[in-house]
């Protein structure tokens, strides 16, 4: 479960929380980058719909 680290981050103190935040930001960044690269591919688009 995403967010599980938040509790451990609190247990580990501010440094641990900073690491957890950085890691979760990295996961979000990963999804955004992959999504953007994928969006440039010539995939079929549903008729009458737009991206």
């Amino acid at each position, binding site marked *: *479960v*995403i967010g599980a680290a*938040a*509790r*451990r981050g609190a247990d580990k103190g501010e440094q641990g929380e900073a690491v957890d935040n950085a890691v979760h930001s990295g996961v979000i960044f990963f999804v955004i980058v992959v999504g953007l*690269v994928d969006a*440039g591919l010539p995939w079929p*688009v549903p008729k009458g719909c737009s991206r």
Partner: protein
Amino acid sequence: MIAGHFGFAAGVKAAEQQTPLWALMLSTVWLDIVFVPLFLMGIETLEPVAGLTGGYGANIIHADYTHSLVGAAALSAVFGAAFVFRWGLRSGVVLALVSFSHWVLDLIVHRADMPLLPGDIGHFPRFGFGLWQLPQATIAIEALLVVAGAWLYYRAARSVSKAAGRGIARADIASLLILIGGLGVLALDVSGILG
């Protein structure tokens, strides 16, 4: 489990090419996204398994709303419905099903901590086959989902790029990102850095 969900989403993209990958990836972790604010509010909680200190697969997850069977189905339906008007009924249904696939994959790994009804109304028996008790097996399944998803995506992306006469390099990059990023997320999860 996080990386396995992403791998599954990439595999679905190969079959449902009209639905954007970002939406599939968002849908596959939608239940966890809703979990975060509920967790921060203390409505849903985590509890380390007795004798363990938490980490990869070592928590009892009291996500009684987002990860209840009925709650997951309702959240998935809402997610899919939100995209019907933009991308059509088929994509909406696909996104709803991918969102619900999160519950199905979690069913395999969770210890029996997922209730039938939101808030565990009625206190029915909880679901979860508990594969997390065998972390190596769970890691193998997650890695397999990532590799298979990246491979299926690669084949589909290459195919549409070749047919269109453009985007082949982009297809390779996207596939590589899915593979490396997915395995990276898995490594972070297993190491206990990512929850």
